[in-house]
Protein backbone atom coordinates (compact mmCIF):
# COMPACT_ATOMS: atom_id res chain seq x y z
CA UNK A 1 0.00 0.00 0.00
CA UNK A 2 2.69 2.44 1.06
CA UNK A 3 4.83 1.66 -1.98
CA UNK A 4 1.86 2.32 -4.25
CA UNK A 5 1.37 5.67 -2.51
CA UNK A 6 4.96 6.66 -3.24
CA UNK A 7 4.70 5.51 -6.86
CA UNK A 8 1.61 7.73 -7.18
CA UNK A 9 3.52 10.68 -5.66
CA UNK A 10 6.69 10.31 -7.73
CA UNK A 11 5.63 8.67 -11.00
CA UNK A 12 4.38 11.86 -12.67
CA UNK A 13 7.43 13.83 -11.54
CA UNK A 14 9.74 11.10 -12.86
CA UNK A 15 7.99 11.18 -16.24
CA UNK A 16 8.63 14.91 -16.62
CA UNK A 17 12.32 14.45 -15.82
CA UNK A 18 12.63 11.52 -18.25
CA UNK A 19 10.97 13.39 -21.12
CA UNK A 20 13.14 16.46 -20.62
CA UNK A 21 16.04 14.34 -21.98
CA UNK A 22 14.06 13.10 -24.98
CA UNK A 23 15.52 14.09 -28.33
CA UNK A 24 12.13 14.13 -30.04
CA UNK A 25 9.88 17.18 -30.10
CA UNK A 26 6.92 14.81 -29.83
CA UNK A 27 6.86 14.46 -26.10
CA UNK A 28 5.71 10.86 -26.02
CA UNK A 29 7.94 9.38 -28.69
CA UNK A 30 11.31 8.39 -27.28
CA UNK A 31 14.01 9.25 -29.81
CA UNK A 32 17.12 8.87 -27.70
CA UNK A 33 18.90 10.84 -24.99
CA UNK A 34 19.56 14.51 -25.61
CA UNK A 35 20.20 17.70 -23.69
CA UNK A 36 18.95 19.77 -26.61
CA UNK A 37 16.00 21.32 -24.70
CA UNK A 38 18.27 22.55 -21.94
CA UNK A 39 20.33 24.34 -24.56
CA UNK A 40 17.25 25.94 -26.07
CA UNK A 41 16.00 26.89 -22.63
CA UNK A 42 19.19 28.85 -21.97
CA UNK A 43 18.57 30.81 -25.17
CA UNK A 44 15.02 31.71 -24.14
CA UNK A 45 15.18 35.33 -22.91
CA UNK A 46 11.54 35.46 -21.88
CA UNK A 47 12.03 32.57 -19.47
CA UNK A 48 15.36 33.91 -18.19
CA UNK A 49 13.86 37.35 -17.44
CA UNK A 50 10.83 35.84 -15.75
CA UNK A 51 13.13 33.65 -13.64
CA UNK A 52 15.06 36.72 -12.47
CA UNK A 53 11.83 38.55 -11.58
CA UNK A 54 10.58 35.50 -9.69
CA UNK A 55 13.83 35.11 -7.74
CA UNK A 56 13.88 38.78 -6.80
CA UNK A 57 10.27 38.61 -5.56
CA UNK A 58 10.85 35.33 -3.71
CA UNK A 59 13.96 36.59 -1.86
CA UNK A 60 12.29 39.84 -0.79
CA UNK A 61 9.02 38.15 0.14
CA UNK A 62 10.69 35.34 2.11
CA UNK A 63 12.78 37.84 4.08
CA UNK A 64 9.77 40.03 4.87
CA UNK A 65 7.70 36.97 5.77
CA UNK A 66 10.50 35.73 8.04
CA UNK A 67 10.60 38.96 10.06
CA UNK A 68 6.84 39.45 10.40
CA UNK A 69 6.11 35.72 10.74
CA UNK A 70 8.69 35.29 13.53
CA UNK A 71 7.11 38.19 15.44
CA UNK A 72 3.65 36.72 14.88
CA UNK A 73 4.71 33.22 15.97
CA UNK A 74 6.41 34.69 19.05
CA UNK A 75 3.30 36.68 19.94
CA UNK A 76 1.02 33.65 19.49
CA UNK A 77 3.12 31.35 21.66
CA UNK A 78 4.13 33.81 24.42
CA UNK A 79 1.34 36.35 24.81
CA UNK A 80 -1.65 34.31 25.88
CA UNK A 81 -3.94 37.26 26.48
CA UNK A 82 -4.22 40.61 24.80
CA UNK A 83 -7.04 42.58 23.26
CA UNK A 84 -7.90 41.12 19.87
CA UNK A 85 -5.86 37.92 20.24
CA UNK A 86 -8.60 35.77 18.70
CA UNK A 87 -8.75 38.05 15.68
CA UNK A 88 -4.96 38.03 15.47
CA UNK A 89 -4.81 34.23 15.52
CA UNK A 90 -7.48 33.99 12.84
CA UNK A 91 -5.68 36.54 10.64
CA UNK A 92 -2.29 34.83 10.99
CA UNK A 93 -3.48 31.38 9.94
CA UNK A 94 -6.19 32.60 7.56
CA UNK A 95 -3.98 32.84 4.45
CA UNK A 96 -2.90 29.17 4.97
CA UNK A 97 -6.23 27.79 3.80
CA UNK A 98 -7.85 30.76 2.07
CA UNK A 99 -8.46 29.90 -1.60
CA UNK A 100 -5.85 31.77 -3.62
CA UNK A 101 -8.37 33.39 -5.96
CA UNK A 102 -9.96 35.16 -2.98
CA UNK A 103 -6.64 36.32 -1.49
CA UNK A 104 -5.50 37.53 -4.89
CA UNK A 105 -8.69 39.38 -5.76
CA UNK A 106 -9.02 41.04 -2.35
CA UNK A 107 -5.40 42.26 -2.34
CA UNK A 108 -5.74 43.65 -5.84
CA UNK A 109 -8.89 45.57 -4.87
CA UNK A 110 -7.02 46.94 -1.85
CA UNK A 111 -4.11 48.13 -4.01
CA UNK A 112 -6.49 49.80 -6.44
CA UNK A 113 -8.40 51.48 -3.61
CA UNK A 114 -5.11 52.65 -2.03
CA UNK A 115 -3.92 54.09 -5.32
CA UNK A 116 -7.21 56.02 -5.59
CA UNK A 117 -7.02 57.27 -2.03
CA UNK A 118 -3.33 58.01 -1.35
CA UNK A 119 -1.64 57.60 -4.72
CA UNK A 120 0.38 54.55 -3.63
CA UNK A 121 1.16 51.99 -4.99
CA UNK A 122 1.32 53.67 -8.37
CA UNK A 123 0.41 50.85 -10.71
CA UNK A 124 1.19 47.27 -9.84
CA UNK A 125 4.24 45.10 -10.29
CA UNK A 126 7.05 43.61 -8.21
CA UNK A 127 6.32 45.61 -5.00
CA UNK A 128 2.65 44.63 -4.91
CA UNK A 129 3.44 40.95 -5.54
CA UNK A 130 6.04 41.08 -2.74
CA UNK A 131 3.45 42.50 -0.31
CA UNK A 132 0.98 39.77 -1.29
CA UNK A 133 3.60 37.03 -0.89
CA UNK A 134 4.77 38.37 2.49
CA UNK A 135 1.18 38.09 3.74
CA UNK A 136 0.97 34.50 2.50
CA UNK A 137 4.47 33.49 3.64
CA UNK A 138 4.26 34.94 7.15
CA UNK A 139 1.40 32.57 7.91
CA UNK A 140 3.65 29.58 7.20
CA UNK A 141 6.62 31.08 9.06
CA UNK A 142 4.52 31.85 12.13
CA UNK A 143 3.16 28.29 12.27
CA UNK A 144 6.70 26.84 12.10
CA UNK A 145 8.08 29.31 14.67
CA UNK A 146 5.14 28.86 17.04
CA UNK A 147 5.57 25.07 16.92
CA UNK A 148 9.30 25.43 17.69
CA UNK A 149 8.68 27.84 20.58
CA UNK A 150 6.08 25.47 22.04
CA UNK A 151 8.80 22.84 22.59
CA UNK A 152 11.33 25.35 23.85
CA UNK A 153 13.17 25.27 27.19
CA UNK A 154 12.36 28.65 28.68
CA UNK A 155 14.70 28.21 31.65
CA UNK A 156 17.57 29.40 29.42
CA UNK A 157 15.79 32.69 28.81
CA UNK A 158 14.91 33.01 32.47
CA UNK A 159 18.53 32.39 33.45
CA UNK A 160 19.70 35.17 31.13
CA UNK A 161 17.08 37.53 32.53
CA UNK A 162 18.13 36.65 36.09
CA UNK A 163 21.72 37.45 35.17
CA UNK A 164 20.63 40.90 34.16
CA UNK A 165 20.28 40.71 30.38
CA UNK A 166 17.67 43.01 28.86
CA UNK A 167 14.66 41.32 27.22
CA UNK A 168 15.69 42.47 23.73
CA UNK A 169 19.19 41.10 24.27
CA UNK A 170 17.78 37.78 25.52
CA UNK A 171 15.68 37.54 22.38
CA UNK A 172 18.61 38.11 20.03
CA UNK A 173 21.30 36.19 21.96
CA UNK A 174 19.32 33.24 23.38
CA UNK A 175 15.96 32.83 21.67
CA UNK A 176 16.86 33.53 18.05
CA UNK A 177 19.87 31.16 17.82
CA UNK A 178 17.84 28.38 19.45
CA UNK A 179 14.98 28.65 17.00
CA UNK A 180 17.34 29.18 14.02
CA UNK A 181 16.47 25.85 12.33
CA UNK A 182 12.79 26.81 12.36
CA UNK A 183 13.73 30.18 10.88
CA UNK A 184 15.70 28.52 8.07
CA UNK A 185 12.80 26.17 7.35
CA UNK A 186 10.31 29.06 7.45
CA UNK A 187 12.36 31.22 5.09
CA UNK A 188 12.74 28.37 2.60
CA UNK A 189 9.04 27.58 2.79
CA UNK A 190 8.09 31.21 2.12
CA UNK A 191 10.69 31.33 -0.68
CA UNK A 192 9.39 28.26 -2.52
CA UNK A 193 5.76 29.34 -2.03
CA UNK A 194 6.52 32.68 -3.62
CA UNK A 195 8.52 31.11 -6.44
CA UNK A 196 5.62 28.78 -7.19
CA UNK A 197 2.62 31.08 -6.91
CA UNK A 198 0.62 31.73 -10.05
CA UNK A 199 -2.83 32.85 -8.91
CA UNK A 200 -2.07 35.55 -6.34
CA UNK A 201 0.74 36.98 -8.47
CA UNK A 202 -1.54 37.11 -11.55
CA UNK A 203 -4.06 39.23 -9.64
CA UNK A 204 -1.57 41.57 -8.00
CA UNK A 205 0.83 42.14 -10.89
CA UNK A 206 0.76 44.76 -13.60
CA UNK A 207 2.08 44.84 -17.14
CA UNK A 208 5.61 45.49 -15.83
CA UNK A 209 6.23 42.19 -14.07
CA UNK A 210 5.84 38.67 -15.46
CA UNK A 211 6.86 35.86 -13.14
CA UNK A 212 8.10 32.38 -14.04
CA UNK A 213 4.84 30.58 -13.16
CA UNK A 214 2.96 32.97 -15.48
CA UNK A 215 5.26 32.08 -18.36
CA UNK A 216 4.97 28.37 -17.59
CA UNK A 217 1.19 28.61 -17.29
CA UNK A 218 0.63 30.40 -20.59
CA UNK A 219 2.96 27.98 -22.34
CA UNK A 220 1.36 24.90 -20.72
CA UNK A 221 -2.09 26.11 -21.80
CA UNK A 222 -0.88 25.70 -25.37
CA UNK A 223 0.21 22.12 -24.70
CA UNK A 224 3.11 20.09 -23.36
CA UNK A 225 6.47 21.43 -24.49
CA UNK A 226 9.93 19.91 -24.18
CA UNK A 227 11.41 23.21 -22.97
CA UNK A 228 8.98 23.32 -20.07
CA UNK A 229 10.01 19.74 -19.22
CA UNK A 230 13.61 20.89 -19.01
CA UNK A 231 12.69 23.93 -16.92
CA UNK A 232 10.57 21.78 -14.62
CA UNK A 233 13.47 19.37 -14.14
CA UNK A 234 15.85 22.18 -13.19
CA UNK A 235 13.34 23.59 -10.69
CA UNK A 236 12.67 20.13 -9.21
CA UNK A 237 16.38 19.40 -8.76
CA UNK A 238 17.11 22.81 -7.21
CA UNK A 239 14.23 22.50 -4.74
CA UNK A 240 15.09 18.90 -3.85
CA UNK A 241 18.75 19.75 -3.18
CA UNK A 242 17.85 22.80 -1.05
CA UNK A 243 15.25 20.89 0.97
CA UNK A 244 17.58 17.95 1.64
CA UNK A 245 20.41 20.27 2.71
CA UNK A 246 18.04 22.24 4.94
CA UNK A 247 16.76 18.98 6.42
CA UNK A 248 20.34 17.95 7.23
CA UNK A 249 21.09 21.32 8.83
CA UNK A 250 17.98 21.17 10.95
CA UNK A 251 18.57 17.62 12.17
CA UNK A 252 22.26 18.30 12.84
CA UNK A 253 21.50 21.39 14.93
CA UNK A 254 18.92 19.37 16.83
CA UNK A 255 21.50 16.74 17.71
CA UNK A 256 24.15 19.18 18.93
Amino acid at each position, binding site marked *: *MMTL*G*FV*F*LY*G*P*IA*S*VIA*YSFNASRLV*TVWAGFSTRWYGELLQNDQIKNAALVSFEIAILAATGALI*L*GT*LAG*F*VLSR*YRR*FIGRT*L*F*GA*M*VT*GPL*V*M*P*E*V*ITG*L*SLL*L*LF*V*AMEQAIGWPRGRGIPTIV*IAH*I*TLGMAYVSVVV*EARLASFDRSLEEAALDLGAR*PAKVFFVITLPLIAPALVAGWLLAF*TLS*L*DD*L*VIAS*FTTGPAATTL*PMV*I*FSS*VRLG*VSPQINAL*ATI*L*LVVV*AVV*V*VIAGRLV*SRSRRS
Partner: protein
Amino acid sequence: MRRFATVLPPYAWLALFFLVPFLIVLKISLAEQAMGIPPYTPLIADGQVQVSGANYQFLFSDSLYVRAYLNALWFAAWSTVGCLLIGYPLAYGIVRAPLRWRNTLLLLVILPFWTSFLIRVYAWIGLLKANGLINDVLMQIGLIHAPLPLINNSFAVFVGLIYSYLPYMVLPLYAALEKLDPTLLEAAADLGCRPRQAFWHVTLPLSLPGIIAGSLLVFIPMCGEFIIPDLLGGPDTLMIGHVLWDEFFTNRDWPLASAVAVAMLVLLVLPMGVLRRYLTGERA
Protein backbone atom coordinates in the same frame (compact mmCIF):
# COMPACT_ATOMS: atom_id res chain seq x y z
CA MET B 1 5.53 48.84 25.86
CA ARG B 2 7.89 46.14 24.56
CA ARG B 3 4.93 43.86 24.16
CA PHE B 4 3.07 46.49 22.20
CA ALA B 5 6.07 46.97 19.89
CA THR B 6 6.19 43.21 19.21
CA VAL B 7 2.49 42.79 18.54
CA LEU B 8 1.99 45.91 16.48
CA PRO B 9 3.99 45.21 13.26
CA PRO B 10 2.40 41.83 12.38
CA TYR B 11 -1.00 42.98 13.65
CA ALA B 12 -1.00 46.15 11.59
CA TRP B 13 0.31 44.30 8.52
CA LEU B 14 -2.41 41.65 8.69
CA ALA B 15 -5.15 44.17 9.42
CA LEU B 16 -4.13 46.20 6.37
CA PHE B 17 -3.32 43.37 3.95
CA PHE B 18 -5.67 40.62 5.08
CA LEU B 19 -8.67 42.08 6.93
CA VAL B 20 -9.26 45.37 5.12
CA PRO B 21 -9.12 43.73 1.66
CA PHE B 22 -12.11 41.55 2.58
CA LEU B 23 -14.11 44.59 3.61
CA ILE B 24 -13.26 46.14 0.25
CA VAL B 25 -14.37 42.95 -1.54
CA LEU B 26 -17.65 43.12 0.37
CA LYS B 27 -18.07 46.77 -0.53
CA ILE B 28 -17.35 46.29 -4.21
CA SER B 29 -19.63 43.26 -4.43
CA LEU B 30 -22.44 45.71 -3.68
CA ALA B 31 -21.41 48.08 -6.47
CA GLU B 32 -22.09 47.80 -10.17
CA GLN B 33 -19.77 47.43 -13.13
CA ALA B 34 -18.87 50.77 -14.71
CA MET B 35 -16.69 52.11 -17.45
CA GLY B 36 -13.50 53.75 -16.23
CA ILE B 37 -10.78 53.22 -13.67
CA PRO B 38 -11.57 51.58 -11.32
CA PRO B 39 -14.31 49.74 -13.22
CA TYR B 40 -17.05 49.90 -10.57
CA THR B 41 -19.49 52.47 -9.20
CA PRO B 42 -18.50 54.31 -6.01
CA LEU B 43 -20.14 53.52 -2.68
CA ILE B 44 -21.01 57.13 -2.02
CA ALA B 45 -21.97 59.39 -4.91
CA ASP B 46 -23.57 62.85 -4.63
CA GLY B 47 -23.81 62.40 -0.88
CA GLN B 48 -25.90 59.24 -1.23
CA VAL B 49 -24.95 55.68 -0.38
CA GLN B 50 -25.37 53.43 -3.40
CA VAL B 51 -25.80 49.78 -2.58
CA SER B 52 -27.01 47.22 -5.07
CA GLY B 53 -27.81 43.58 -4.51
CA ALA B 54 -27.96 43.01 -8.25
CA ASN B 55 -24.76 40.92 -8.35
CA TYR B 56 -26.03 38.47 -5.78
CA GLN B 57 -29.41 38.27 -7.45
CA PHE B 58 -27.63 37.49 -10.69
CA LEU B 59 -25.45 34.80 -9.07
CA PHE B 60 -28.45 32.92 -7.79
CA SER B 61 -30.63 33.32 -10.87
CA ASP B 62 -28.04 32.20 -13.44
CA SER B 63 -27.68 28.43 -13.38
CA LEU B 64 -24.02 28.67 -14.50
CA TYR B 65 -22.93 30.08 -11.14
CA VAL B 66 -25.05 27.77 -9.04
CA ARG B 67 -23.73 24.79 -10.98
CA ALA B 68 -20.09 25.92 -10.68
CA TYR B 69 -20.62 26.42 -6.95
CA LEU B 70 -22.09 22.93 -6.51
CA ASN B 71 -19.46 21.44 -8.83
CA ALA B 72 -16.68 22.85 -6.65
CA LEU B 73 -18.25 21.33 -3.53
CA TRP B 74 -18.76 18.00 -5.28
CA PHE B 75 -15.19 17.76 -6.58
CA ALA B 76 -13.66 18.96 -3.32
CA ALA B 77 -15.73 16.54 -1.20
CA TRP B 78 -14.96 13.41 -3.23
CA SER B 79 -11.30 14.35 -3.69
CA THR B 80 -11.03 14.77 0.07
CA VAL B 81 -12.34 11.21 0.45
CA GLY B 82 -9.81 10.08 -2.18
CA CYS B 83 -6.95 11.80 -0.35
CA LEU B 84 -8.03 10.12 2.87
CA LEU B 85 -8.21 6.66 1.27
CA ILE B 86 -4.68 7.00 -0.15
CA GLY B 87 -3.20 9.15 2.63
CA TYR B 88 -4.27 7.06 5.60
CA PRO B 89 -2.48 3.83 4.57
CA LEU B 90 0.53 5.96 3.61
CA ALA B 91 0.69 7.72 6.99
CA TYR B 92 -0.01 4.43 8.79
CA GLY B 93 2.76 2.68 6.87
CA ILE B 94 5.27 5.42 7.74
CA VAL B 95 4.39 5.32 11.46
CA ARG B 96 4.80 1.53 11.44
CA ALA B 97 8.10 1.63 9.51
CA PRO B 98 11.40 1.03 11.37
CA LEU B 99 12.54 4.13 13.23
CA ARG B 100 15.62 4.75 11.07
CA TRP B 101 13.45 4.83 7.94
CA ARG B 102 10.72 7.02 9.30
CA ASN B 103 12.30 10.43 8.78
CA THR B 104 13.38 9.58 5.25
CA LEU B 105 9.90 8.35 4.33
CA LEU B 106 8.33 11.46 5.81
CA LEU B 107 10.76 13.64 3.86
CA LEU B 108 9.73 11.76 0.71
CA VAL B 109 6.10 12.71 1.35
CA ILE B 110 6.94 16.34 2.06
CA LEU B 111 9.30 16.79 -0.89
CA PRO B 112 6.57 16.97 -3.59
CA PHE B 113 4.80 19.56 -1.41
CA TRP B 114 7.87 21.80 -1.75
CA THR B 115 8.15 21.40 -5.48
CA SER B 116 6.08 23.43 -7.86
CA PHE B 117 2.33 22.90 -7.74
CA LEU B 118 2.05 24.04 -11.34
CA ILE B 119 4.64 21.53 -12.54
CA ARG B 120 3.00 18.68 -10.67
CA VAL B 121 -0.31 19.44 -12.39
CA TYR B 122 1.50 19.86 -15.69
CA ALA B 123 3.08 16.41 -15.31
CA TRP B 124 -0.38 14.86 -15.46
CA ILE B 125 -1.10 16.43 -18.85
CA GLY B 126 1.78 14.46 -20.30
CA LEU B 127 0.49 11.27 -18.71
CA LEU B 128 -3.24 11.60 -19.43
CA LYS B 129 -3.58 13.20 -22.87
CA ALA B 130 -4.76 11.19 -25.90
CA ASN B 131 -1.21 10.47 -27.10
CA GLY B 132 0.19 10.59 -23.56
CA LEU B 133 2.17 7.99 -21.66
CA ILE B 134 -0.74 6.01 -20.17
CA ASN B 135 -2.69 5.68 -23.41
CA ASP B 136 0.54 4.90 -25.25
CA VAL B 137 1.49 2.05 -22.93
CA LEU B 138 -2.03 0.60 -22.91
CA MET B 139 -2.14 0.62 -26.73
CA GLN B 140 1.36 -0.86 -27.04
CA ILE B 141 0.47 -3.86 -24.93
CA GLY B 142 -2.77 -4.21 -26.89
CA LEU B 143 -5.16 -3.67 -24.00
CA ILE B 144 -7.02 -0.92 -25.85
CA HIS B 145 -7.18 0.00 -29.53
CA ALA B 146 -8.25 3.63 -29.32
CA PRO B 147 -7.01 6.17 -26.75
CA LEU B 148 -9.14 6.46 -23.61
CA PRO B 149 -10.55 9.92 -22.87
CA LEU B 150 -8.49 10.57 -19.75
CA ILE B 151 -8.09 14.35 -19.86
CA ASN B 152 -10.36 17.43 -19.96
CA ASN B 153 -13.03 15.64 -17.93
CA SER B 154 -13.99 15.02 -14.30
CA PHE B 155 -11.66 12.04 -14.03
CA ALA B 156 -8.61 14.22 -14.72
CA VAL B 157 -9.81 16.87 -12.25
CA PHE B 158 -10.20 14.23 -9.52
CA VAL B 159 -6.73 12.82 -10.22
CA GLY B 160 -5.20 16.31 -10.21
CA LEU B 161 -6.90 17.37 -6.97
CA ILE B 162 -6.07 14.17 -5.09
CA TYR B 163 -2.48 14.13 -6.32
CA SER B 164 -1.75 17.79 -5.57
CA TYR B 165 -3.25 17.88 -2.09
CA LEU B 166 -2.16 14.44 -0.83
CA PRO B 167 0.86 15.70 1.20
CA TYR B 168 -1.39 18.13 3.13
CA MET B 169 -3.51 15.15 4.14
CA VAL B 170 -0.63 12.85 5.12
CA LEU B 171 1.10 15.27 7.52
CA PRO B 172 -1.76 15.76 10.05
CA LEU B 173 -2.59 12.03 9.82
CA TYR B 174 1.03 11.15 10.54
CA ALA B 175 1.11 13.58 13.49
CA ALA B 176 -2.04 12.00 14.96
CA LEU B 177 -0.91 8.40 14.41
CA GLU B 178 2.59 9.03 15.77
CA LYS B 179 1.18 10.35 19.05
CA LEU B 180 -0.86 7.19 19.52
CA ASP B 181 0.33 5.28 22.55
CA PRO B 182 1.35 1.73 21.40
CA THR B 183 0.54 0.30 24.85
CA LEU B 184 -3.13 0.90 24.08
CA LEU B 185 -2.88 -1.57 21.20
CA GLU B 186 -1.03 -4.04 23.40
CA ALA B 187 -3.76 -3.71 26.00
CA ALA B 188 -6.39 -4.34 23.34
CA ALA B 189 -4.48 -7.44 22.18
CA ASP B 190 -4.13 -8.71 25.75
CA LEU B 191 -7.87 -8.37 26.16
CA GLY B 192 -8.36 -10.62 23.13
CA CYS B 193 -8.86 -8.01 20.45
CA ARG B 194 -7.74 -9.04 16.96
CA PRO B 195 -5.50 -6.62 15.08
CA ARG B 196 -8.28 -5.66 12.70
CA GLN B 197 -10.72 -5.04 15.56
CA ALA B 198 -8.04 -3.06 17.40
CA PHE B 199 -7.63 -0.87 14.33
CA TRP B 200 -11.36 -0.09 14.12
CA HIS B 201 -11.88 0.35 17.86
CA VAL B 202 -8.61 1.94 18.98
CA THR B 203 -6.43 3.35 16.18
CA LEU B 204 -9.12 4.86 13.98
CA PRO B 205 -11.09 6.70 16.72
CA LEU B 206 -7.87 8.05 18.26
CA SER B 207 -6.65 9.36 14.92
CA LEU B 208 -9.96 11.17 14.30
CA PRO B 209 -8.53 14.65 15.06
CA GLY B 210 -5.90 14.04 12.37
CA ILE B 211 -8.57 12.87 9.94
CA ILE B 212 -10.70 15.97 10.53
CA ALA B 213 -7.75 18.40 10.38
CA GLY B 214 -6.34 16.79 7.22
CA SER B 215 -9.73 16.66 5.51
CA LEU B 216 -10.47 20.34 6.15
CA LEU B 217 -6.92 21.32 5.24
CA VAL B 218 -7.41 19.88 1.74
CA PHE B 219 -11.17 20.52 1.33
CA ILE B 220 -11.09 24.30 1.84
CA PRO B 221 -8.46 25.25 -0.77
CA MET B 222 -9.80 22.60 -3.18
CA CYS B 223 -13.15 24.45 -3.23
CA GLY B 224 -11.46 27.52 -4.70
CA GLU B 225 -9.04 25.69 -6.98
CA PHE B 226 -8.33 27.36 -10.32
CA ILE B 227 -5.22 25.78 -11.87
CA ILE B 228 -6.44 22.16 -11.82
CA PRO B 229 -9.87 22.64 -13.47
CA ASP B 230 -8.23 25.00 -15.96
CA LEU B 231 -5.43 22.66 -17.07
CA LEU B 232 -7.01 19.23 -16.58
CA GLY B 233 -10.75 19.94 -16.72
CA GLY B 234 -13.18 20.37 -19.56
CA PRO B 235 -16.35 22.33 -20.29
CA ASP B 236 -18.41 20.31 -17.79
CA THR B 237 -15.99 20.65 -14.87
CA LEU B 238 -16.35 24.38 -14.26
CA MET B 239 -15.57 25.21 -10.63
CA ILE B 240 -16.41 28.40 -8.76
CA GLY B 241 -12.75 29.48 -8.40
CA HIS B 242 -12.41 29.34 -12.16
CA VAL B 243 -15.60 31.38 -12.59
CA LEU B 244 -14.15 34.08 -10.32
CA TRP B 245 -10.98 34.16 -12.43
CA ASP B 246 -12.97 34.45 -15.67
CA GLU B 247 -15.25 37.18 -14.35
CA PHE B 248 -12.20 39.16 -13.35
CA PHE B 249 -9.72 38.56 -16.17
CA THR B 250 -12.01 37.87 -19.14
CA ASN B 251 -15.18 39.86 -18.43
CA ARG B 252 -13.48 42.49 -16.28
CA ASP B 253 -16.56 42.52 -14.05
CA TRP B 254 -14.94 43.32 -10.72
CA PRO B 255 -18.18 43.68 -8.73
CA LEU B 256 -19.47 40.29 -9.89
CA ALA B 257 -16.08 38.64 -9.18
CA SER B 258 -16.27 40.16 -5.68
CA ALA B 259 -19.76 38.78 -5.16
CA VAL B 260 -18.49 35.31 -6.17
CA ALA B 261 -15.66 35.68 -3.62
CA VAL B 262 -18.13 36.66 -0.86
CA ALA B 263 -20.37 33.71 -1.74
CA MET B 264 -17.36 31.38 -1.48
CA LEU B 265 -16.27 32.88 1.83
CA VAL B 266 -19.72 32.45 3.36
CA LEU B 267 -19.47 28.77 2.57
CA LEU B 268 -15.91 28.35 3.85
CA VAL B 269 -15.98 30.39 7.07
CA LEU B 270 -17.46 27.55 9.12
CA PRO B 271 -14.96 24.84 8.00
CA MET B 272 -12.13 27.36 8.53
CA GLY B 273 -13.26 27.99 12.10
CA VAL B 274 -13.45 24.27 12.81
CA LEU B 275 -10.00 23.70 11.31
CA ARG B 276 -8.50 26.48 13.44
CA ARG B 277 -9.90 24.87 16.55
CA TYR B 278 -8.32 21.53 15.61
CA LEU B 279 -4.95 23.02 14.71
CA THR B 280 -4.66 25.15 17.85
CA GLY B 281 -6.23 22.45 20.03
CA GLU B 282 -3.51 20.04 18.96
CA ARG B 283 -0.79 22.40 20.09
CA ALA B 284 -2.31 23.17 23.48
